[in-house]
């Protein structure tokens, strides 16, 4: 299991969001079972389900043109101690800085990156060859 990589390529359309997030959840479950972790399973799965849902939505929402959306690639890597998910798209560049929670005039969007940042251990964004990749990793709690 160690060092396996799972890659999923989906059209950049938000209709496929659930497919991406459910795959993330199930991949996280598989990863945990290979690590023989028995605690915090639900939290770990949900962290990946939610983070991938957010990252995929971001990628799909800005995909253009909408009639022939660029594909979005999601890959999961089983590392020694952590699971890493990367989401790659070929949209124009974007920034990673999440806005601070604004309770007064709560905006209706822009909370995706805030969620990813608080759920994952490490998050990084890279732009190369006209693609954006957001990479995020999390270690399960080992007791």
């Amino acid at each position, binding site marked *: 299991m*160690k*060092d396996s990589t799972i890659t999923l390529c989906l059209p950049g359309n938000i209709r496929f969001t659930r497919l991406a997030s459910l795959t993330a959840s199930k991949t996280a479950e598989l990863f945990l079972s290979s690590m023989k972790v028995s605690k915090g399973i639900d939290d770990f799965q949900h962290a990946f389900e939610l983070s991938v849902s957010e990252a995929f939505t971001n990628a799909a929402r800005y995909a253009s043109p909408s009639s022939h959306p660029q594909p979005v690639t999601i890959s999961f890597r089983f*590392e*020694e101690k952590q699971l890493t998910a990367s989401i790659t798209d070929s949209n124009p560049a974007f920034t990673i800085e999440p806005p601070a929670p604004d309770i007064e005039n709560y905006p209706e969007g822009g909370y995706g990156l805030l969620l990813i940042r*608080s759920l994952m251990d490490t998050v990084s964004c890279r732009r190369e060859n006209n693609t954006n990749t957001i990479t995020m990793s999390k270690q399960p709690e080992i007791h």
Partner: protein
Amino acid sequence: MKTLLTIRENSYAWVTSALQGLAPLLLPICNKPFVEFLVDFAVLAGSREIRLLSDGPLQEVEQYCEDGSRWGVQMSYAHIKESDDHQTIFEKNRRFCNDSKVMVIDGFVFVGYDKKNDYRDLFNSMPDGTVASCTTGSIRLFTVSESNMANNDETPVSLTPIDSVESYYDLSMHILRHESSRYVLPGYGSEPDSYVGRNVTISKSAEIIKPVSIGNNVQILAGSVIGPDAVIGSNVIIDRKSRITESIVLDNTYIGEELDVEHKMANRNTLISPQGAVSIAMEDPHLLTGIKDTARGIGNLLRTIVHTLTAIVLILLLVIPFILITPILAVQGKWKSSRKTCYDHTCKGVISLPDVSIERSGPLSAIAFALSLDRLPTLFRVVGGKLSLIGNAPIAAEEKNLSPPAATPGYRPAVFSYAEAENWPVGGSDAAIVERFYAIHSNPLQDIGLTMKSLINRFHDTTTA
């Protein structure tokens, strides 16, 4: 019976401002988080289901308590609004409260009880109404069919508001001095009034005077005196010849040499005087100036020479495996090199450092990792005088850092970190303690030893993984 804990954000706002970096609901009282006392009490009163309600964030406390199975209870969490009154809170949690007598503990208050008493039968037989109250909170009993409320004359428990630094300090001291037997306190106690946690090293010449409570991962160095009346948190180093009396040292704190801490609270690099309605926070001058002095002068020159020479030796040793192995790894795509910008030793300027990560698969990359080949490019920076060989892990300049280097006294960006050498998790607040400790204590010779230790640790990591 079930228990509802309602704790509003404004009742603990003072913690956030006075004691930086602490989650208010996890505020340690004699080394045990505040919320755990409430859970213990709810269990004593016969509750198997506890719900924590707040109009503020609950994430940290939820991470700590989880589902409550540790205490054999079911814990749940829910949100209320600042404007919600008792009735609304009750309505919002109707499903939880149904078919049961409910104890509502309201406010950021400490419940004074005795673990030897039986509160279960007592509370079950009590009529609905207020059991105990104080200026900032209360304990009340409810039943779903709202009956006539009656106030109870004799209160089986006491309530103490925790509404300021002073009241917090007084409470912790009071429990330590007089009431430690009434609660379940963490740590081992071979004798009463002394509670000591795991992984605690106490120097032979250090003196411990009861009553004391000491957390986990604590080092108490030669000639220091702890107590009487000292609460030492976890991940704490008390340096040589320091005295801690009538004081609370909170988690992740380093107390420098020959410091007299009396009737104070220490939190990271701040000393707080518990007196007065307003808390006074002072920079600890001994700690900061102490480090800045050693960072300059002859010792520093010697250190630079030793670091440079050792780096040259390491480069000579590693360069041949480097030439043989890295091109292969690079072709396989397992050698990933990028650059990152970090603060330099002045904390003001920045330096750009090569940042190599090796994908850990296959025997070659294992060898490369075991030999620390990924650190070779940065070793040249030591020769150039830009980095130290061993010191702090470089702090990236672009991240929004929790601890900017200005808050890390004696910050010396380096190829290897002291935390690595001591096998502490790199980058956490725990690591900051080790790095801060060695920032004062290491001498150039020790540095070589510690560098070897971190090389061996990495080697060991690979071979056992």
